[in-house]
């Protein structure tokens, strides 16, 4: 397979990599760049564990060809934690509200929440449920995840 060069911004840093042209974004992130926080549960864009932000829009990285990110900006779960270890308010809320069980869907859930709260810090519950509906969770029943997104929005607002 022909190699191709891809330049993009990853978690705020410029990245330039050569990869086979059929590489999927999730494999570029996990295997080539070593960012294992993004998970794969189905590899067909169904479970949403692989969600990352592409220019602030959530995408399933397991079905997105890597070359599609050329010249664009990608944010993964690793990009949410500040360099000094400070957490994003969404991560903090997931911990406090008990929104984490096995943790496999958690990065995908948090990235969807990030995209939502970036647009609308005070979403109605229905909006939250819609925003995370592309990520499957078998453990929590979603309730504490919804609550965590709500409380993260409130917290982001109060620190704004």
């Amino acid at each position, binding site marked *: 397979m022909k190699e191709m060069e891809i330049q993009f911004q990853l978690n705020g840093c410029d990245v330039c990599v050569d990869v086979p042209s059929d590489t999927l974004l999730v494999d570029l992130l996990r295997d080539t760049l070593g960012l294992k926080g993004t998970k794969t*549960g189905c590899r067909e864009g169904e479970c949403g564990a692989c969600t990352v932000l592409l220019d602030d829009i959530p995408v399933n990285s397991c079905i997105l060809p890597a070359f599609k990110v050329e010249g664009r900006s990608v944010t993964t779960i690793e990009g*949410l934690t500040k360099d000094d270890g400070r*957490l994003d308010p969404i991560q903090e809320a997931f911990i406090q509200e008990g929104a984490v*069980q*096995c943790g496999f869907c958690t990065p995908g859930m948090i990235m969807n929440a990030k995209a939502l709260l970036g647009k609308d810090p005070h979403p109605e519950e229905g909006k939250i449920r819609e925003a995370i509906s592309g990520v*499957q969770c078998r453990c929590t029943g979603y309730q*504490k995840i919804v609550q965590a997104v709500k409380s993260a929005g409130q917290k982001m607002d109060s620190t704004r």
Partner: protein
Amino acid sequence: MSTKTHDHKQIKTLTKDKPDLQGLIKTSQMSPSVVGKSIVRTDALSKVTGKLAFGADYSQEGFLHGKILRSPYPHAVIKSIDIEKAKNLSGVAAVLTAEDVPGRNGFGAIIPDQPVICGDKVRFVGDGVALVAAETEKIANQALELIKVEYDLLPPVFDPIEALKEDAPKVHEKGNLLSYNKLRKGDAEKGFAQADVIIERTYKVPFLDHAYLEPDICMAIPQVDGTMLVEGPMQAPFTVRRNINAVLGVPINRVQARQISMGGGFGGKEDSPIDLGCRAAVLAHHTRRPVRIALEREEVTLQTCKRHPMTMKIKIGAKKDGSLVAFEGVIYDEQGAYASLGPVIPPAGGSHIHAMIMMSGPYEIPNVKIDAYLCFTNNPYGGAMRGFGAPQVHVAHEQIIDELAEALGTTPFDIRRRNGLREGSATATGQVLDQSVGLHDTLESCAKAFDWEKKYQDTGYVNEEKTKRRGVGIGMGWYRTSIGTNNDACGANVYVHEDGTVLLSTGITEMGQGSFTVLPQICAEELGVRVEDVRVARPDTDAVPESGPTVGSRSTTLMGNAIILAARQVKKSILEMAAEMLMVPLTRLESRDRRIYDRDNPDTVLEFREAAARCMANGKRLIGQGWWAPPAPSLDPETGQGNPYFVYTYSTHMAEVNVDMETGEVEVTDYVAAFDVGKAINPKALEGQIEGGVAMGLGYALTEEVAIENGYIQNLSLRDYLIPTSLDVPDIKPIILEVENKFGPYGAKGIGEMPNLPATPAILNAIANACGGRVRDLPADPEKVYWAIKEAEIPLD
């Protein structure tokens, strides 16, 4: 025929025989400082940052990639296998067939009847006929395509009732009836003679997939001393080890099974790590190199165990006043191709046995007769899934009790209030419940929070167009803590270090349910330290005591007690040292929040760590080892009478639904779930179990089914196998009640499996209440609901 009787005396005897069971609950008069608090999960930080490594995140450097060639037929004789071409492919390290298995060519949680590599015949689509290890996954997949297998097709059987017929194709040599058990309480015939109303119904539930988000993975890494190290997400590392040692033909101490982080299990990762572990180990044994087998999603669905499908026939009778007098049931439990965890494990373990014991529900019925058949077929195999045998029968008993109420002219609430188990009630097995029976508390408090009385009156059309109708339903349930076998002990090591911090080693695994938070809470409480002072060691068969599997809602209760016993040994040592140091009598000392003090004079105080350091310096015990097994279970094989489990958790759920009368679509709009849990060690974690369990029960009711046609699964992917999303699950209001379990740590009993059991029938009953039609063959998808409405032809206002 045995004439053994089981009465109140027997359970008293159990208590008396086990003096060490007493006094486990409270160590001081003070209220607990760590137990009962919603402490943040110990693993939450690593999970929200994406730093926690699951199996797929481990380095693959130096690993070969293992793949399994699977049978394309449900039932066939293997005529020949040609592996030459595959072997010669560049990058292939090994291609193995049945003769290459060094030891026993069979694995299984209970009976090792599933070949590691099939040699003579295949029994389901997905059976392994050859194994490949190669430098890359791509090469391994190419090699699979180069293996040529010739089969002679055999007639298959796909239905458990068909499988019992004399001329049915035999899945295994011994025949298709894997286990049969019966339960006889009182005299069912006489009971029915007293009944004013008798109804008969049949309920069916399909195969279900666990659909844990993390696909299965296993790594086998040969060690220089000849030991085989096997790592993976596994609920039962000791069962994995027990299988691999036999398959490799080596002693048990030459296998080390190490649990790594698990992305959900729900019972499924009790079986599958045995399968993957044996196969990866055989490949690693032959190549002398590390081998990883990572399944794709479709392979997970194809290869791993499922929740047992059941056909359940029931006849139930009641008097005019609503009291139940007789129950008769037949269970056809489909085991599929291999025995796995299904068969009887004396006295009271096994899928159909659990189903049989619980089939008549949490009700006191004087006359009960049940026959339970567990049958092989050429479908995928049944294993444990959150409630092993119990979710199925809850679907049946909770629906028939509603249908009976209707026939009697009473309400779903009143029939349950009249017949529900209370303290002093005898269960279907004749077990007299002498403690911790909070069923009625859950019924009453659930009704209050849900506003049942009002909602039950307020059903009917909800829109002007008269297309949608509202209904409400109740699901009541009960579930055991423990597995009902004689191998149910838990062991724990508690190691206090010289700085007062603690290493807690147990074989109980963390799969998301929160054991690595709840168990340290119990440990910290007992020692008198903070929960952050306790680190949990990874379950590793080389390093932790045998704890049995992480199943059966047993971890918190059984392991909690083992931890308390272990911690007490160390605490005794530390308090003796503190008594010397403080010059205070031992009996006056209290250990709490990292400090040891004189109860009568709280200013006389010592840091916990100072006493620990002095113990270390003086060679005084700092390691404790505790073992705890529940009171011995009993079940007479002839009568099905006895005390199969030592305590039960009880629950009542109430659901409100809207049913679209034109499309059959169902929306769950309100939900309350009440539980008697004995004691909530960590209320927030407990709520998480409840909410997740209800969601799973909702999927069982409305959408989930492994659709199999002639042995071929039609919905291998998560696109076609529909688990509930955030848009399907309503707000769930959990209610936690605490009716103390005298055998439990701080009074606790199990909760892991319970929440999904009453959820399914609560929703099914609400659907029937809304639209008049009842779905008795799950799932109640829009099509089935639509036809149920049509068939019911009930005039609706």
